[in-house]
């Protein structure tokens, strides 16, 4: 069967044998976007977090059939080297990653949080950012999340001034 979805702004149509194939496999293996990671396969660790229609989902536990006609954003679509997303910029500035494997999932979860809660408190972070990092970079991530919130607000203010 064919599934059509928009990934990072581009319409993609994929031929899939099993509609219950995890979206993660389609993103990584069919569309060759390797930034989103497989961690536990049980929607527990959050390494596979990406956005579907703006909502953070655990793509290892998200059948691709549910993505039909929807907009998917992966870490590659969040920003790039030339124009990083405020979350990516903050992650660079705070030198957050150690091994880095889980970090795309954390960044996607953070981007989703900032879209809902532009200036999150520590409590907001504790409730919403519940991914797992085995290197224990939580302390630096917390600083980066606060920095990302400030960067995003600055960016939005600058954009509104330009208009």
């Amino acid at each position: 069967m064919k599934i059509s979805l928009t990934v990072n702004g581009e319409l993609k149509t994929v031929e899939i044998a099993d509609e219950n194939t995890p979206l993660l496999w389609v993103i990584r293996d069919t569309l060759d976007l390797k930034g989103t990671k497989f961690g536990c396969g049980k929607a527990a660790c959050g390494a596979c977090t990406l956005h579907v229609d703006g909502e953070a989902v655990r793509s290892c536990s998200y059948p691709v059939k549910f993505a039909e006609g929807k907009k998917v954003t992966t870490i590659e679509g969040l920003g790039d080297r030339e124009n990083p997303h405020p979350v990516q910029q903050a992650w660079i500035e705070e030198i957050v990653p150690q091994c880095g494997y889980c970090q795309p999932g954390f960044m996607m979860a953070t981007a989703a949080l900032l879209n809902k809660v532009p200036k999150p408190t520590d409590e907001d972070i504790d409730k919403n950012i519940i991914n797992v990092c085995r290197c224990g970079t939580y302390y630096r991530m917390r600083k980066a999340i606060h920095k990302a919130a400030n960067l995003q607000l600055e960016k939005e203010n600058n954009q509104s001034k330009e208009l």
Partner: protein
Amino acid sequence: MKIKSIYIVLILSITGLLFALANTTKTATYELVDDQAQNANDDYNKMMDVLTHQRCMNCHPSDNIPKQGDDSHPHYFGMARGKNDHGFEATNCNTCHQSENNLNSGVPGAPHWALAPASMAWEGLTREEIAERLLDKNINGNRSHDELVKHMTEDDLVLWAWQPGVHANGEQRTVPPVSKEDFKKAVENWFANGAVIPSK
């Protein structure tokens, strides 16, 4: 004269006896009433056997923390009711739970997956207290008996209890001790008979 009096007394006694017998409730009538009461109790008990099972109770917490598993442990990762019974702003029920069970990851799912409202907290309550809450229109979403029957016998999330999917290790989740069909009949009968809480 004596014989005549004896006859009169005898006739009156027999008449009285016949009258008394005619107005005495038959044993069979008592048995019928008992049967009805017993059937109503059976319906109530079947319904409550389901409502108090972990598949239902885990999402009717009294501490705003969803529960998981047959041991009803607190939901991992600090998940809680949040606003709208649906978790937190960016990490909510649908971050992991979709509209159907995921047999690959073991994550359960059903349409409108969410906690029951706080007013429908059942955890720690007796069966009678649960029944009282269920029937109280001030806290049950203003549902009438007919609406409660519809909710309890047709709602996909309620009926998920009999198709709960598998755990992450691939083992089937347990289901309530009463079949779905028997539960539906019990609910319909209990409400049809006036939704009487037996101990009241």
